[in-house]
């Protein structure tokens, strides 16, 4: 066994090199993200099929959504992805922990803004207009079955996405605490990198949800 020189912080025994450890972490996270792709993919698949079966109802349902808020939230999430990437870069380049925390908190504020916009301007309005499945109606209600089907898809897809956002905010809170406790350096910042992958993945899900739910229903 080759003796390691100075043992870098965060370097686990089972790995040959720091690079191997980093690549193993990235690969492991991507394996998890692939399961997430297929998890959301199941919903996207059923959305495609039911949309093709009830096209007019889905277009009608899509018109209940407000493009302005969907587009704003897309921009907010993309901006949060940028700040997340910059948080990781700040750690990579060995900047002070204050700067890392600044970018992490900015990411959290943007993530929370996404949920706030969703709750205040979209879901609350849907509640007032009686569009929420199970809350506004169980069976009956004023909408056609096809529109109800669309609203079910809308709430399950955006709901699970928002749930992922909430989990992401929890992860970011842990990262802020870890950063404050000097756990990271330019040599070791794997939790930041791995959590960043998760955050960007959630962004990508929204990049697809936005056109599928809001845009492709004949807005012209």
């Amino acid at each position, binding site marked *: 066994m080759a003796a390691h020189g100075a043992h870098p912080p965060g370097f686990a025994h089972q790995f040959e090199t720091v690079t191997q450890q980093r690549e193993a972490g990235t690969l492991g996270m991507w394996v998890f993200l692939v399961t997430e792709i297929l998890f959301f993919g199941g919903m996207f698949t059923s959305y495609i099929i039911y949309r093709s079966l009830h096209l007019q109802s889905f277009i009608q349902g899509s018109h209940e959504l407000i493009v302005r808020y969907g587009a704003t939230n897309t921009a907010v999430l993309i901006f949060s992805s940028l700040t997340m990437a*910059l948080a990781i870069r700040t750690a990579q380049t060995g900047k002070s922990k204050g700067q890392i925390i600044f970018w992490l908190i900015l990411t959290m504020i943007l993530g929370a803004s996404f949920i706030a916009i969703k709750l205040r301007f979209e879901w609350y309005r849907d509640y007032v207009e009686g569009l929420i499945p199970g809350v506004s109606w169980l069976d009956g209600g004023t909408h056609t079955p096809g529109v109800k089907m669309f609203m079910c898809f809308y709430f399950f897809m955006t709901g699970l996405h928002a749930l992922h956002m909430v989990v992401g905010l929890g992860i970011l809170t842990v990262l802020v605490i870890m950063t404050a406790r000097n756990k990271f350096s330019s040599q070791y910042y794997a939790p930041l990198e791995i959590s960043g992958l998760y955050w*960007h993945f959630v962004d*990508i899900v929204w990049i697809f949800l936005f056109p599928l739910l809001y845009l492709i229903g004949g807005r012209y």
Partner: protein
Amino acid sequence: MSEHAGHDSDTPHVVPITTYVLVFLALMLGTALTTWVAYIDLGRWNTVAALTIAVIKMTLVVLFFMHVKYATGLTRIVILAGFFWLGIMITLSCSDELTRRWEIVPQGWQMIVPLFSRLF
């Protein structure tokens, strides 16, 4: 990238801030474009345009924000496999569900089949 001859010293690729900002601007432009296009009547091409822009945006996020441009081949294969399996799920589910209501009307030489079934 410098060769790492059994040494721990090689550091991961640090993406320049300008790259991140350019990717961010491209993503914002994509969002504006996809929203704008949705209000133009392109018929069925509206869906194609929306999904094409979404795929381009996803690719930018994956390559630059998620550092896959600088990742190992193994990681890339795992990601591609994930999307390949997603493709299998969507294609096979659709090919089942969307062909269930096809009614087969025998035409031309296929008329032989009902004829024969009547004979025997």
